[in-house]
């Protein structure tokens, strides 16, 4: 193996790729080769560094100098000034509040974060398994196979208190326990990577940045519950994730970390990669199982739960990407360590994608219990353009809208429940005071009316009725009675819908009505829309 005096990491995550990180990488490699420096400098493609707003991101080691917004035209200067003369190119440094931040960990963006799931994302080349292995990849699996019984593994997961990170927040260890106890052969492990919740792309960036963490988690889960076959169902739109994950599975097989008799333990496990085909409802676990079986992705009645009757009617453990990526660190460091992170009711960390009207958009991992204000102001860098914070929608389009009066709320399941919101899947959409809540509600409801699978009446009809009512209010033809009707429909949907889609679709509208009822009333009573986005007369009376 050759040794280079410097490693240059260039982000190849989706967001930086859309900001031209591929031409940057090509130009850098070409310039290094032209100057005959290829024995000294190695260019490595990594996953997401998190600071997507500032992409493409480049980090040069050993110093750890962090450049933002690098374009192909900047490469000559980086090579001449930094690589050859050892001087920092100041104009490309991240600009923090007071001064330029030279390294990533020195930025306020990083200081409040705690990276467990994202431990290797941005640090390794996701297409080279050896880089994962050099950073403790598959050590959790090795420990489980060498020193723990399946029951020990399940007990550790139970003790850790890890709650499912896909949206519902069900204790992960209990699912593992149910599946271990279930009778029936064979058993399956399914990784839910059908990340469709608007505003959420954390699973995508985990899959793109550290696929081996997910493969390892699936193998640990297989050992724990007694399954030798795993499936991962990745959203069809996520082409880069599919491609990287397939490659990672091949490499894990070559290295004997998947396949028969893994690490001489007698345990065998394989992973098959499947692609979705565009259906939000397939993120619901039983709909996903139907889709894996080659059917329409309609949710099933529960019970029976997948732990007893899942894929092809067999006991199936189905967990989200982030949940599974937590398994190896929990086994390596222990349940008590995991409980020491986060809040009492919600141990551990949570990965979010921060989007909307915030200075630093991107991928973050924070301890549970951090306040919304800390995320928005410290990590997010506040609201740009001299605007004010209006609300944060947490958990995606099916999540609640939290107004400024609750900015100090700790982010965990019980506290969010108190304000009518839920933790959800990991989206955090920040909205400033230039936007109208009725207009945003319209967007939410058009989404649900489109994505409802139509199988059960409360959701199929409810989503369409809600859309119609809110469209009417936005257009200036709504009445106060519509608001009452809206509340009645939402109550029915929450109680009577078959799956989480219909049960949670009312959440954003209910919280919008709870915290921003004045805006709804203004549209109805005086035709006033603060942003002018709605069809009503801006700032004036309805004619």
């Amino acid at each position, binding site marked *: 193996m050759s040794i280079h005096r410097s490693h240059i990491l260039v982000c190849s995550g989706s967001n930086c790729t859309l900001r031209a990180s591929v031409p940057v990488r090509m130009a850098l490699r070409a310039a290094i080769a032209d100057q005959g420096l290829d024995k000294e400098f190695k260019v490595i493609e990594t996953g997401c560094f998190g600071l997507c707003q500032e992409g493409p991101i480049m980090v040069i080691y050993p110093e750890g100098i962090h450049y933002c917004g690098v374009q192909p035209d900047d490469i000559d200067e980086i090579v001449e000034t930094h690589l050859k003369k050892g001087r920092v190119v100041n104009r490309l440094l991240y600009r923090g509040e007071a001064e330029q931040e030279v390294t990533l960990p020195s930025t306020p963006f990083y200081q409040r974060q705690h990276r467990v799931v994202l431990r290797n994302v941005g640090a390794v080349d996701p297409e080279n398994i050896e880089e994962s292995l050099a950073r403790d990849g598959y050590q959790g699996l090795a420990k489980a196979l060498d020193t723990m019984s399946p029951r020990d593994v399940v007990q550790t997961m139970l003790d850790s208190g890890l709650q499912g990170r896909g949206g519902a927040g069900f204790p992960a260890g209990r699912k593992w326990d149910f599946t271990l106890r279930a009778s029936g052969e064979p058993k399956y492990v399914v990784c839910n990577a059908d990340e469709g919740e608007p505003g*959420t792309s954390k699973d995508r960036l985990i899959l793109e940045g550290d696929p081996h963490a997910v493969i390892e988690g699936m193998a640990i889960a297989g050992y724990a519950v007694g399954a030798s076959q795993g499936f991962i169902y990745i959203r069809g739109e996520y082409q880069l994730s599919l491609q990287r994950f397939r490659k990672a599975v091949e490499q894990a097989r070559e290295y004997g970390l998947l396949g028969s008799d893994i690490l001489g333990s007698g345990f065998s496990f394989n992973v098959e990669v499947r692609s979705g*085909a565009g259906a939000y409802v397939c993120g619901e676990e039983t709909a996903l199982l139907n889709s894996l079986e080659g059917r329409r992705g309609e949710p099933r009645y529960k019970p029976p739960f997948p732990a007893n009757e899942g894929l092809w009617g067999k006991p199936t453990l189905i967990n989200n990407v982030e949940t599974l990526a937590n398994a190896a660190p929990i086994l390596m460091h222990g349940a008590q360590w995991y409980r020491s992170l986060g809040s009492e009711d919600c141990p551990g960390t949570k990965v979010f994608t921060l989007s909307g009207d915030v200075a630093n958009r991107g991928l973050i991992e924070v301890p549970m219990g951090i306040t919304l204000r800390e995320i928005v102001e410290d990590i997010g860098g506040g609201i740009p353009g001299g605007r004010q914070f209006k609300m944060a929608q947490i958990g995606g389009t099916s999540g609640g809208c939290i107004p400024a009066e609750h900015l100090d709320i700790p982010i965990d399941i019980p506290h969010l429940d108190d304000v009518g919101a839920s933790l959800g899947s990991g989206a955090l959409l920040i909205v400033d005071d230039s936007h109208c809540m009725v207009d945003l509600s319209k967007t939410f409801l058009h989404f649900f009316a*489109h994505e409802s699978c139509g199988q059960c009446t409360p959701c199929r009809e409810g989503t369409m009725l809600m859309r119609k009512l809110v469209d009417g209010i936005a257009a200036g033809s709504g009445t106060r009675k519509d608001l009452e009707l809206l509340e009645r429909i939402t109550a029915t949907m929450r109680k009577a819908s078959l799956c989480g889609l219909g049960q949670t679709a009312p959440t954003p509208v209910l919280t919008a009505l709870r915290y921003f009822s004045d805006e709804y009333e203004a549209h109805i009573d005086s035709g006033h829309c603060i942003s002018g986005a709605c069809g009503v007369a801006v700032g004036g009376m309805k004619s």
Partner: protein
Amino acid sequence: MIMLCSCREVKIVREDVKEAVQRCGREKHQLLEILGQLQKGTNFLERDTLVAVAEELDLPLAEVYGTATFYSLYSTKPRGRYVVRVCESAPCHIDGAADILAAVKAHLGVAVDETTDDSQFTLETTSCLGVCSVGPAMMINDEVYGNLTPDRAVEILQSHN
């Protein structure tokens, strides 16, 4: 093999279906994968294709049709060479997705779910593409584009002619 045809660029024939089934496997759970592969050349699934798949997998046509029409990435109606999907989820919406959609509509001269007369472009809207840090975004076939402005969206469309 995928045949060239004068009316549309490519046409799926029985051999393509057999080949896809052979490649993916005959089990029912491979249906989505098979449909996905068969759609690659034409961007839509013709009735004849669905009939052939149903026969090859020994499934009722209704079931194959039901599955094909459930998922938004499949279409049973003819679509253009390029399927343009403009994101209209909340994060792109607050970044001005409505202006992008309006510019794309005006440039192509079609409404959502319509195809241009020359069969080059079909315009669709899509839910979140998961690139919210660089919104507004759109996808053309398998390629995602971010940081759009109305002008940039039109430039990108022009580069696809």
